[in-house]
């Protein structure tokens, strides 16, 4: 093994050595490869997202001029091919396959969807970059007028052959990652190979063997080496895996298509070129053809823009690609016939990174660049690569620039490198491709309101009291609800927050190319914005039934979208949710939501009937909230403040509530129970505080309570800090300005021993730091007064302050009103 570099050329000997050491039957491998080589039909192995494979495909088509090309890719998406290679389609792009099982064909509704009534939805992306061998095959074929087809199972076929496994929730089926290279890593052969050469992952191995130098390789030799490598991997991969991940099914289906197209085009075997992942190429000659039934009707195939970032993030159907920007640069060098493409890109990469590092204020010299470039080349050599790959380049950059622990001092380089290796490029899809119904509806609806959707940025002001304009508002709410990044509300009533002073909405509209991709994705929900949003509403309510807060919020959004006719459905969902939600926080959140919605139902066009229903719903949710309070007398530590906040908010709402009948005693009862049951002093203080605020408890009683603690043993005494904090947290100025309370607090501090005091100091400090600064000042003065240090009449002072504040707000109000009038006319 003393060849300096690993390459396709010296691979054979090495592979057989490793094979022998593992006891693999080398003659068997030889026979397999031979079979592919001798096969009349030409099977060309590739790796997805691979400049080396792409150059092989391109040269192969040029040299051998096939008369029919068949490519691993979703059958039934052939209609997209001509748009994929159009001039104004710019990769990265993806074929998006979607399927919503409205008829429950696979019996997965309610298993993969939140409810039997909600269709299970499936999607798969098949991304393509400039250096995807499949894409280059497509464009070469179209250019040369050679018929070309996708031959792999479509999405519904994949679901069909995995549906049994999908039904079993214990089996995690990664349906759309079947080509994930992780399975290669399991191959015994590959493990050994990687170990011998100390390669980190499949990518590094493949790159060293088949990417670097691919531009200079003889294509027949390159093909043979790839076949050999893949044969070893296939031979040492567990058959069970290949079965489980549908590899075998897919191959027989591909073979079936090969036969079908062969007949259809009446071409000779030797004129057929079949381009698939190498692992399939080695098996296809021996595979028996078979066709499978699968639904085709609701299957949607479309083309969407994709991004380098997404490609690097998830590998999806095809194998991943960690650094699209980097490989794109390699591909460019390949096509412009640069002699040492990897070295050239390494040099550019290093100079770019170093320039950026310099711009960011790091001291980087020319000598660093030179050193790093040389370093990359030498590292490549040690790793048996003829030219440096991305890993060598990155290693040498850190080696030269980072003068310490790279995980700390090299941090700043991470983002620079990510930017240069992954990149941010987003692709584009030609406009000539027909729009899906949902896309059409989106544009038509907006145009019907006189809006040109594709205008870059625009603003729209809506008077909610105008019927026609409120329809537009509803449209925007639908768009927003569907998660389409187009309409953003800048201004308007915030009903759920009780912020309802105005009747005008201001929306900012901004189109971007991702919107079309999103609309395509959403197509499984329906053909119009209305249908899609209603279906999504159903799905969301089913999904979130255990969270009353979310359900009521959905009710609100539903009304904002104008679905008053839907009210009864959502009302029912709310009732369901009240049954199953047992969390105090989400219950109270839902209760507040309902109160707020109730006040605006009339304006939103709801019927009297519905409003009555709403009233009953509010009452029911009130009781449910109250009954759940004692269950949370001892909330998880760290969450106390959230619970007290919710209880206090509830109290505030109850006091201010007007036209709904509510029995306050239920609430008081619950709070009392909570006071008794809690062993958390902050909660105790807080709930006692609530009772005090509602006049159900007197200062005297609070005093007694505190003294009770003060006269207990130390282990109880130390809890006094939390108790006081709870009290102050809830009551604030309303309690601590009370002369009696001040007296008690002073007493606490005076009598308590030093050890106990140091234990209660943190909560006390916290309590007082939560006060408003002016409250705090006043408290200090009162305290000083208590000790006879100063004398002053605070009552007057308070009045003066309040008067001042009132005046101030009056002026502000006037100003705001003026501004609004200038903007929107008379309000």
């Amino acid at each position, binding site marked *: *093994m*003393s060849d*300096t570099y690993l390459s396709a050329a010296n691979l054979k000997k090495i592979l057989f050595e490793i094979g022998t050491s593992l006891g693999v039957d080398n003659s068997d491998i030889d026979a397999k490869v031979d079979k592919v080589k001798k096969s009349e039909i030409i099977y060309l192995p590739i790796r997805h997202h691979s400049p080396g494979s792409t150059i092989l495909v391109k040269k192969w088509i040029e040299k051998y001029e096939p008369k029919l090309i068949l490519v691993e890719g979703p059958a039934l998406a052939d209609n997209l091919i001509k748009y994929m290679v159009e001039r104004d389609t710019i990769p990265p792009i993806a074929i998006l396959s979607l399927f919503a099982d409205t008829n429950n064909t696979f019996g997965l509704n309610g298993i993969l969807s939140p409810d039997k009534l909600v269709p299970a939805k499936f999607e798969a992306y098949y991304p393509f970059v400039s250096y995807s061998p499949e894409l280059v095959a497509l464009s070469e074929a179209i250019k040369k007028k050679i018929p070309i087809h996708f031959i792999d199972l479509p999405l519904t076929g994949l679901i069909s052959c995995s549906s049994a496994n999908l039904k079993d929730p214990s089996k995690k089926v990664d349906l759309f990652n079947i080509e994930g290279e992780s399975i290669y890593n399991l191959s015994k052969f590959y493990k050994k190979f990687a170990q011998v050469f*100390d390669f980190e992952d499949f990518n590094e191995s493949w790159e060293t063997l088949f990417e670097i130098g691919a531009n200079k390789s003889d294509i027949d030799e390159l093909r043979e080496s790839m076949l050999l490598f893949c044969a070893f991997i296939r031979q040492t991969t567990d058959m069970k895996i290949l079965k489980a991940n549908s590899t075998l099914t897919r191959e027989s289906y591909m073979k079936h298509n090969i036969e079908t197209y062969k007949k259809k085009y009446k071409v000779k075997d030797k004129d057929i070129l079949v381009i698939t992942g190498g692992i399939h190429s080695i098996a296809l000659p021996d595979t028996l053809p078979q066709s499978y039934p699968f639904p085709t009707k609701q299957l949607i195939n479309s083309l969407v823009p994709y991004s380098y970032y997404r490609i690097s993030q998830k590998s999806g159907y095809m194998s991943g690609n960690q650094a699209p920007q980097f490989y794109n640069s390699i591909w460019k060098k390949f096509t412009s016939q640069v002699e040492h493409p990897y070295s050239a890109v390494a040099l550019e990469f290093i100079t770019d990174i170093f320039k950026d590092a310099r711009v960011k204020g790091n*001291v980087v*010299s020319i*000598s660093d660049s030179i*050193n790093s470039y*040389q*370093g990359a080349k*030498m*590292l490549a*050599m*040690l*790793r048996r690569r003829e030219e440096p790959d991305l890993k060598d380049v990155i*290693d*040498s950059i850190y*080696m*030269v620039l*980072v*003068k*310490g*622990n*790279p995980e700390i001092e090299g941090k700043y380089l991470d983002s620079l490198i990510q930017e240069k290796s992954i990149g941010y490029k987003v692709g584009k899809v030609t406009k000539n491709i027909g729009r899906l119904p949902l896309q059409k509806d989106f544009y038509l609806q907006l145009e019907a309101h006189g809006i040109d959707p594709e205008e870059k940025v625009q603003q729209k002001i809506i008077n909610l009291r105008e019927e026609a304009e409120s329809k537009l508002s509803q449209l925007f709410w639908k768009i927003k609800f569907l998660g389409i990044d187009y309409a953003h509300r800048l201004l308007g009533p915030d009903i759920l927050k009780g912020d309802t002073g105005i009747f005008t909405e201001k929306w900012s509209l901004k189109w971007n190319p991702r919107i079309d991709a999103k609309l395509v994705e959403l197509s499984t929900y329906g053909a119009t914005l209305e249908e899609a949003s209603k279906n999504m509403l159903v799905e969301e309510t089913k999904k979130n039934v255990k969270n009353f807060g979310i359900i009521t919020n959905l009710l609100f959004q539903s009304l904002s979208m104008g679905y008053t006719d839907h009210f009864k459905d959502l009302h029912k969902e709310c009732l369901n949710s009240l049954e199953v939600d047992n969390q105090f926080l989400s219950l109270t959140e839902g209760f507040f939501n309902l109160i707020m919605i109730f006040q605006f139902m009339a304006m939103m066009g709801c019927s009297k009937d519905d409003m009555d229903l709403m009233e009953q719903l509010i009452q029911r949710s009130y009781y449910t909230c109250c009954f759940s309070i004692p269950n949370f007398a001892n909330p998880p530590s760290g969450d106390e403040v959230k619970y007290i906040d919710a209880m206090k908010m509830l109290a505030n709402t109850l006091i201010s509530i007007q036209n709904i009948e509510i029995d306050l005693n239920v609430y008081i009862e619950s709070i009392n129970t909570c006071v008794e049951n809690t062993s958390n002093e902050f909660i105790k203080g807080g709930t006692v505080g609530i009772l005090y605020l509602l006049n159900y408890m007197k200062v005297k009683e609070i005093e007694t309570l505190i003294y009770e603690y003060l006269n207990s043993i130390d282990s109880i005494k130390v809890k006094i800090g939390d108790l006081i904090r709870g009290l102050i947290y809830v009551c604030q100025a309303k309690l601590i300005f009370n002369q009696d309370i001040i007296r008690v607090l002073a007493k606490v501090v005076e009598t308590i021993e030093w050890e106990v005091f140091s234990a209660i100091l943190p909560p006390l400090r916290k309590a007082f730091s939560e006060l408003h600064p002016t409250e705090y000042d006043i408290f200090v003065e009162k305290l000083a007064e208590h000790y006879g240090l100063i004398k002053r009449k605070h009552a007057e002072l308070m009045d003066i302050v309040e008067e001042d504040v009132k005046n101030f707000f009056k002026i502000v109000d006037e100003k705001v009103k003026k501004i609004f009038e200038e903007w929107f006319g008379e309000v």
Partner: protein
Amino acid sequence: MEKKKVPQKSTTPKSFTKITPPASKNTSPSPPKKKPPTSKTTTTKKPTPALRKIPKISLGSNKKSSKTENEKIRFPAEELHKEELKALIQNDTYPKPPNWQLSPKMVELFITGSNEEFPLKVNGTQKKIKISTKFYGQRDLIQKSIVTLASERALMLIGEPGTAKSWLSEHLSAAISGTSTYLIQGTAGTTEDQIRYSWNYALLVSEGPSPESLVPSPTINAMREGRILRFEELTRCPQEIQDSMISILSEKVIPIAELGSEYLIFGIPGFNVVASANDRDRGVNEMSAALKRRFNFIYIPVIQDKSLERKIVLQRTNDLLTKIGFKIQIPEDTLDLLITVFQELRTGRSTSGGRFTPISTVMSTSEEISLLFDSAIYAKFFGKSEVQPKHVAMNLISAIVKDDKENLPKLREYFNMVARVRANKSDTWKEFANAFKKHATY
């Protein structure tokens, strides 16, 4: 500092000025013809490391040193692995940087080890030689180190104590230069003389400054011969002393001002420096930017992987024991206990989730090795030739507390929170806990 380079005469190779005769590039360097004055003169200021005779073959040995081979406690790596190095040299087909005895690929192989057997021819007979693993851990680190040494830059190994920085530096030098003994040990008291050169004062007085009265430093020797100079704990030296390395690294030349402005000692290709520094010392931050720029830094992380740590500790301890001819059993359980204790004390977290105050300062892999070695010796003389948990406990206390008395309470905390609990379930831990209680009496 003025450095004027002497115009080169065609007969004198560029690496040497008047001082020494040429050394041919392709053969192993031969000693300078004119030996520097030896230390017979009692007035010599310092012992002169340069007096060491330069080894004839590139696998260096220190024949001249006063101790005989048998007396040496520890052999330098190039002697210890003489056969491995020879075999690698004989089988090396890769390109070599000038004056390297091995190609970078083979240097890597020497450090990481290999299962492949290399034929070695000695006196007409042939042997098969396996290459042992010297450094366990990421191969990347080794590769980057080697690449750096083949470049214009010097290599700085940084990391916590006991992460095998010195170990790596020794083995790299042995593999690349055939000698690992051109060494400067950095301390607060390191002087510029030790880095550059000093004088034989007797000669200096009687003859005045002359090439003969010059006492070269390891630096000068390494420069003349195109070898690797090791500079241990560089950052412990005062900054101005550190900075005297700047010109050496950038110009690869040392001017001898006392002999006239044209006296320059040049480094020939192959000369480079491996420095090491402890990143717990504040030193690394205080290194001047100019000096930092001359180095590529390679950070050697503490080993996190328990099974790897186990492997290193066992392997290295057995090496050491074999060397002194002892065979002592190290039971799995006891080894496991040792590794667990070290990992937990280092991080302040027990594997079962408990937390306590970590003792990170002295819990290095090398400390683990010496602890196990000490325990083994103890077992040999006072036990049944098998390391027992109690030996580990005793040595742990003395090893950790000797460094810093404040570690004892931390150790007790660990004992109470973790070890005692485990003692209920495991005999190994029970013995450990009992011994701990007995001995933790400081």
